[in-house]
Structures are given as structure tokens and as C-alpha cells.
């Protein structure tokens, strides 16, 4: 790659919210004034040391940051190649990276005087994080969740309700994350004056993709100094890898390394049953083309008529037909590489993490791990991979049990026929 390509990967988006041709503000007029307000408010907060002091304090005492950067020794030995580090964002309060971003947005909502918070959720992790922070600050919280996801992520639904949130099952479409986002946007248009929409990933109209990325970038920033501490001053990862639903944990890990040409960047999309013409997957970059949905232009799964297709993945958190616009841009510029992993491969990785490291991962980062399993054996021992272990697997044990053929109601733990 030419050196000059590396001059400006961290400057985006432009004033129209574009990363190259991607991003933008494709929303109805009703929302536009509010989105401009939000942008102004975020621009102010971004340069306000007091805002970041409050974030740092909450990150440290409420979330438990910094999350460890952990050398996965047995996993490394097992795969017999590259040296693998896991960024342990699954140890955060509420069990995933989602809370990094939620804290930032809720502090902004407070600055804007909004008292009612809405969110969409797929796996339920963003919903749980939002419900949690709303409980902490005494704000009303409404979470939209696809009906299908309500069923497959039952523990998180109960968690949100315990935390005082109202969970609204969404029946439109196939009842997954895309549909939840539609209904959240409909709520927002209706209650625009008193409501703050807390988006869970690096998608949506500008300024969301940039704002969520900035809040998640704490992940990559910590990796920089943590790796230097463990491997020596100036040592950067050779490869960083993360799973992608909308792409927020990935952007958070990637962003601080965009201008370090020696760092390979790999995003892992959900390949479902395989990325082919049957389209039973959620790999927007490897299996989609550019379009406009949910406020931004990005790669989308769509048919020839521009109708959006439903994604398909074992992982509710990756079950989204789009991807954050900055990833589309990183893909087209070639700065990052995007691959896909099938449900089956992710399940194997899930089990390997349990048996070699004693870490029960969420199904989302299991996709990233599955790609680590593919590449690590062929890389030299001094090649350092940092993978984002962005969520823990508690929420997924029922789904995994079903796929592995375990009957959870059977206390003897026998396998099902």
C-alpha cells in the first residue's frame, strides 16, 4: 500500500458525515433538526475535558476499565503459530463492549436535557447496557427488540425488565435487529422532542457512526499501551481482529491503529450458512452492495430491486443486513480486510475458547476467534494477533446447547437424540 494512503485514515467523516461516499444523513425532515442539535452537542462535548473526565471516572469505577489484555497461552500453543492476545471487553459491567458507548450517549442525553431514552437491540447486550445506565441515572428506558430475538435471547430480556426498562417486541419484518431499528426510528420521529435515541453500533445518520466509534475507541487505545507494557515500548500488534454486526466493537479496536501501516486489520462478518446466492448470511461487505438504509449509505444485503434482505446468523448480535459506513469505506480503500465465518465455524471456536482458556465467549466474538483459528497456525511465533473478546457467552448458552444437542432441562446433562 502506498504511504500517502496512510495520511488521513483517521480524519473522517467530513462535515456532511461522509466517509468517502459512505455515511451521510438520510433521515426524514422531522428528525433532521434534532440530528443537527445532537451533532452540535457532541462537537462541544468532544472538546470538553470535563466530559471526558466524567467518562473516565465511569469507565473506571462503573464499567471496570481498563479491561485486561490477556495473553491466551494455551490457545496460542494449541494453534501453534501467532501469539494471541484477547482484549477482555467481555469482563465489562453488563458483559460486553456495548456499555462503553452507552455511557457516552447517556451523558450527552443528560447534557441535552432528554429524559426518555430509546434503543434497539439484537443480542440484547446493547439493550441491557442502555437499561443499566438509565437505571443508574434515573432515566426512562424503552428498548425495541425483534420478536425472534426476544425468543432466542431470553435471559437478556429478563435482565432489561429487572433493570426497569420497557422491552417492546417488534413483529414487523422477520423480527430481528433491522426491524427493531425501524421501530426505534418510528418511536423517535413520534417523540422527537423529549427522546434521545441511543444507537448501539457505528451505524445510523451522522453523527452516530463517528460518535459511537469515538466512544468505543477506548478499546484500541488501551490495547496500544497495554501491549507496549507487556511486549515492550513501541510494540504494535501485527494483526487486529474483531467480529462485525454493525461494527462498533471492531471500529473501537481498529480506529487507533488505522494510521499504523504495519498493523493488519481484519473484520469478521457473520457467514451464517455460507456466503452464496442463497443469501443465508449477514456478510454485508462480502455479499452485499452499496445502498441507503437507517440514515446512511453503506454496503447492504439487498435484492435487484433495492429491497432489503433479512440477514441470517446464529448470533443475534450479528444479524443485521448492513454495516457501519466507515467499514464500507475501509473496505473500498483496502485499509481493512473483511472475511466471513459460518455458524458452524463459530460454534467450534466457541468450544475451543471454553476448553483451552476457560472463557465462555459470546457467539459474536466466537466468529472473530474462528478466523484466528484459520490464520494463526500459518503465522510465525513472533506475529502478534489481538482479538477483541467483546462479549461473554452467558446470554448464548441456550442457543449453543440447542445446536450442540444438549437438553438443558435434563439435569443429568444427557445429549438429546
Amino acid at each position, binding site marked *: 500500500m502506498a504511504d500517502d494512503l496512510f495520511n488521513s485514515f483517521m480524519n473522517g467523516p467530513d462535515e456532511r458525515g461522509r466517509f468517502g461516499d459512505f455515511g451521510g444523513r438520510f433521515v426524514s*425532515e422531522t428528525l433532521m433538526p434534532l440530528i443537527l442539535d445532537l451533532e452540535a452537542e457532541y462537537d462541544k462535548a468532544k472538546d470538553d475535558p470535563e466530559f471526558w473526565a466524567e467518562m473516565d471516572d465511569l469507565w473506571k469505577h462503573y464499567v471496570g476499565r481498563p479491561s485486561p489484555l490477556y495473553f491466551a497461552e494455551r490457545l496460542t500453543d494449541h494453534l501453534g503459530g501467532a501469539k494471541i492476545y484477547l482484549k477482555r471487553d467481555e469482563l465489562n459491567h453488563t458483559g460486553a463492549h456495548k456499555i462503553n458507548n452507552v455511557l457516552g450517549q447517556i451523558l450527552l442525553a443528560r447534557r441535552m436535557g432528554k429524559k426518555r431514552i430509546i434503543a434497539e437491540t439484537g443480542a440484547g447486550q446493547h439493550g441491557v447496557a442502555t437499561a443499566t445506565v438509565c437505571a443508574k441515572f434515573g432515566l426512562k428506558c424503552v428498548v425495541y427488540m425483534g420478536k425472534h430475538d426476544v425468543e432466542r435471547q431470553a435471559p437478556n430480556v429478563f435482565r432489561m425488565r429487572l433493570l426497569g426498562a420497557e422491552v417492546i417486541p417488534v413483529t414487523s419484518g422477520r423480527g430481528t435487529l433491522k426491524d427493531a431499528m425501524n421501530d426505534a426510528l418510528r418511536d423517535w420521529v413520534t417523540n422527537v422532542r423529549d427522546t434521545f435515541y441511543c444507537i448501539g453500533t457505528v451505524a445510523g445518520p451522522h453523527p452516530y457512526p463517528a460518535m459511537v466509534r469515538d466512544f468505543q475507541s477506548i478499546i484500541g487505545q488501551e490495547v496500544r499501551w497495554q501491549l507496549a507494557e507487556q511486549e515492550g515500548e513501541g510494540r504494535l500488534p501485527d494483526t487486529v481482529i474483531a467480529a462485525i454486526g454493525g461494527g462498533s466493537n471492531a471500529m473501537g479496536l481498529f480506529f487507533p491503529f488505522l494510521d499504523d501501516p504495519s498493523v493488519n486489520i481484519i473484520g469478521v462478518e457473520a457467514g451464517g450458512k455460507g456466503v452464496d446466492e442463497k443469501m443465508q448470511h449477514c456478510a454485508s461487505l462480502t455479499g452485499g452492495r452499496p445502498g441507503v438504509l437507517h440514515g446512511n449509505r453503506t454496503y447492504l444485503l439487498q435484492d435487484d430491486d433495492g429491497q432489503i434482505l433479512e440477514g441470517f446468523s446464529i448470533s443475534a448480535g450479528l444479524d443485521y443486513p448492513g454495516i457501519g459506513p466507515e467499514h464500507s469505506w475501509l473496505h473500498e480503500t483496502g485499509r481493512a480486510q473483511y472475511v466471513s465465518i459460518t455458524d458452524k465455524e463459530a460454534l467450534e471456536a466457541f468450544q475451543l475458547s471454553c476448553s483451552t482458556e476457560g472463557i465462555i465467549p459470546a457467539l459474536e466474538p466466537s466468529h472473530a476467534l474462528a478466523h484466528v483459528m484459520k490464520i494463526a497456525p500459518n503465522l510465525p511465533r513472533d506475529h502478534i494477533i489481538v482479538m477483541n473478546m467483546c462479549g461473554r457467552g452467558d446470554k448464548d448458552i441456550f442457543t449453543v446447547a440447542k445446536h450442540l444437542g444438549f437438553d438443558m432441562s435434563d439435569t443429568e446433562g444427557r445429549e438429546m437424540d
Partner: protein
Amino acid sequence: MTRIDAKFAKLKADGKKAFVAYVMAGDPDYATSLEIVKGLPGAGVDVIELGLPFTDPMADGPTIQLAGQRALEGGMTLQKTLELATEFRKDDDETPIVLMGYYNPIYSRGVDRFLDDAKKAGIDGLIVVDLPPEEDDELCIPAQKAGMNFIRLATPTTDDRRLPKVMTNTSGFVYYVSITGITGAAEADAGDVAPEVARIKRATDLPIVVGFGINSPEKAEAIASVADGAVVGSAIVSRIGKGEAPADVLAFVKSLADGAHRA
């Protein structure tokens, strides 16, 4: 002068308010939809808003969401929507058609190709919900250049600071969305709408029609009396959704049109 401009000029000369009806193209199927659309001018409709089905209609309530689903399940596409308009134009060269929908199907076809095809199909104007003035160079400006009206939505949240921006690059008429919300949800209130229409009038010479939350002849009359016209969508679409025969749907449309024309 587009068919839209001509229509509003004539209404003004006759001292009449406009009645605008929205139906989803291809709902519940192509043939029934064509029959309904062909009957709209006879039922007193001055401007037809033809919905372009989309899988993710973010500004629409359940009634229009379901209409879009029915149409898509029946195999409706942008191409067939244009064919429906072409078919309509064979017998009617006067009633304006405004295509209303979301950007992705248009973007997917390619803006230049879409504009060519839409003009040929006899489409006079576009309302694209997810293209605010900030994205004008996507479709709005190319459409105006192609001689097609690009009709903008103004809403209760469009404040005076923003209004001039919303009124730039727009033509045909202005669609005032009477509520903050989605289609088919809250009821419009003529008392709230009147001062808003007056406010927008100060920023534009274009006719202002009001839509969202109008569901009866009385409401159509009340709203039309404080604006240049009224739009009804969900109330008509819900009857189509219930499987009412086209003649019954059109009789209801006529009662709404009569209401608006009494204003």
C-alpha cells in the same frame, strides 16, 4: 410547467382546495391496484400520490407498512410501479402523479436511469422521505434538472431557522406533515395546523397541502380549509387492506374528496 403546476393553477382559478390521495402501488395486487388508481380522478382526486413499496418504511405506521408488504409479496417492484403509472397515463394525461417512497430502490436502479424511466412513465413529482435538504445533490437537484418536481416535507420540527433551507430546491407544492410521528398514528388538528401553514406561507409561494392524521371527510374539510389542500393515505389504505372492493374504496375516496372540496 408540470402537470402539478397546471393542476394547482386550475384549482386556484376555480377557488378550490386540492384533494390528494395516497395509495400503495401494487396493493393488494397489481390488477386491483391499477383499477383503484384509474378510478381516483373520477372520485375527485386532484393529485395521486403513488406509494413505492419498500421493505423498511421508517416513517410509516403499521397500515402503510402492511400495504408495502402486501405489494412486495405480490411481486411489486419499482419497475412494475412505473408500468402501473404508464398504464394509467394511457387514459389520463392530466392528473398529476407523485411517486412517494424511500431512496434505496431509486438509488439501486441508478438515479439517471430512474429519472429517465419515471418521466417516460408520466410521473410528475417525487417525495422521498429519507432525503432531507442536506442530501439534495443525490436526487433532488438531478430531478429538478430533469423537469420533475421534488416535493419537500415540512414538519412541526422544521423551525424558522431551517425553513428557508427546506424551501430551497423544492417545487410543485409543499407537503406539511401535521404531526411529529408516523403515518396513520395521531389525528391532525386544524387549530394547530392553521398557524403552521401561515408560518410556511411566509417562506414560500408554493401551495401547501397538509397530510398525516386525516381520516374522515370532516377532517379533510377542516384541514383543507386552513391550507391549499389535504392528503389522505392510511384511511384509504386500511380499507384496501381489509379487502374492500375497488368500488367501495373509491366511494370512500369520493366522500373524502367532497369533504376537502367543500372547504
